[in-house]
């Protein structure tokens, strides 16, 4: 991929498209917790229906992300934004699947806010990789 002009660009676009779906699902589920958007569905039912899309977009993001990483692994290893992204990604995924979906009642809103913040960190750090 290091020798192709187009491969990196195409993989980058795939990464961008999958993150659109990923972020879209997270936003719709988390905003529902705050009473915005699809109010006729419960937050739990909404999350359950959209989970397959979240999982698939995570898989596509991860594969395209690894391909992007393979172009410049050493540079990324020493890039603080890359490290911050990996850390916040692991925490965000673990929080979303293992903690948030088990909380209910008053905790749910806090969980929604934490989840949004964590994913925002992933997005911001991801964008910063190219700037640092």
């Amino acid at each position, binding site marked *: 991929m290091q020798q192709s002009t187009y491969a990196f660009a195409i993989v980058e*676009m795939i990464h961008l498209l999958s993150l659109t779906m990923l972020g*879209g699902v997270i*936003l719709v589920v988390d905003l529902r917790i705050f009473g915005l*958007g699809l109010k006729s569905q419960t937050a739990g039912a909404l999350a359950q229906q959209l989970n397959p899309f979240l999982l698939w977009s995570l898989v596509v993001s991860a594969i395209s992300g690894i391909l992007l990483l393979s172009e410049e692994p050493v540079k990324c290893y020493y890039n603080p934004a890359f490290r911050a992204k990996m850390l916040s990604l692991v925490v965000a995924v673990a929080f979303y699947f293992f903690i948030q979906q088990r909380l209910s009642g008053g905790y749910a809103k806090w969980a929604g806010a934490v989840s949004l913040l964590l994913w925002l960190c992933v*997005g911001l750090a991801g964008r910063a990789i190219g700037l640092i």
Partner: protein
Amino acid sequence: MLEHFCQWLYDSAIGTGIRESIWVFPIIETVHVLTITLLVGTVAIFDLRLLGVVLKNEPVSRVASQILPLTWAGFAVMFVSGFLLFWSEAAKSYANPAFRIKLLLLALVGLNPLIFHFTIFQSVSEWNGRVVTPLRARLAAASSLTLWACIICAGRAIAYFQK
């Protein structure tokens, strides 16, 4: 004339200010990139409902009335941030093939819901609860998804062509 207008925007105090600041351009760009999720993510969920893939138990019109306000909020942020980015790079964007393609696709993607709304959506009460919506509704959804995906790719490509 358009070219002159772009040059005038490019040379204006605000355009130059955004372009020459270390922080302003990347911050606006980051907002623009991350808000894609709000705009296109919500559009995609509505389109997937029309295609009968998600929220099958929810009437189409109820998905539309609940999720499209989020889409419009996303659109407002995208439009303002996108215009500010254009403002600072207008003279370069004018000649940029990816930028031209993106604008063309945006015009098409704007036309799509307009046609959808004034034609097949008028009879939504007849097919509101159906999982499989009429062919014209599914065609609108498929073209919307395709167009938005192409717009994101063209948008990314702008940076590759910008000199």
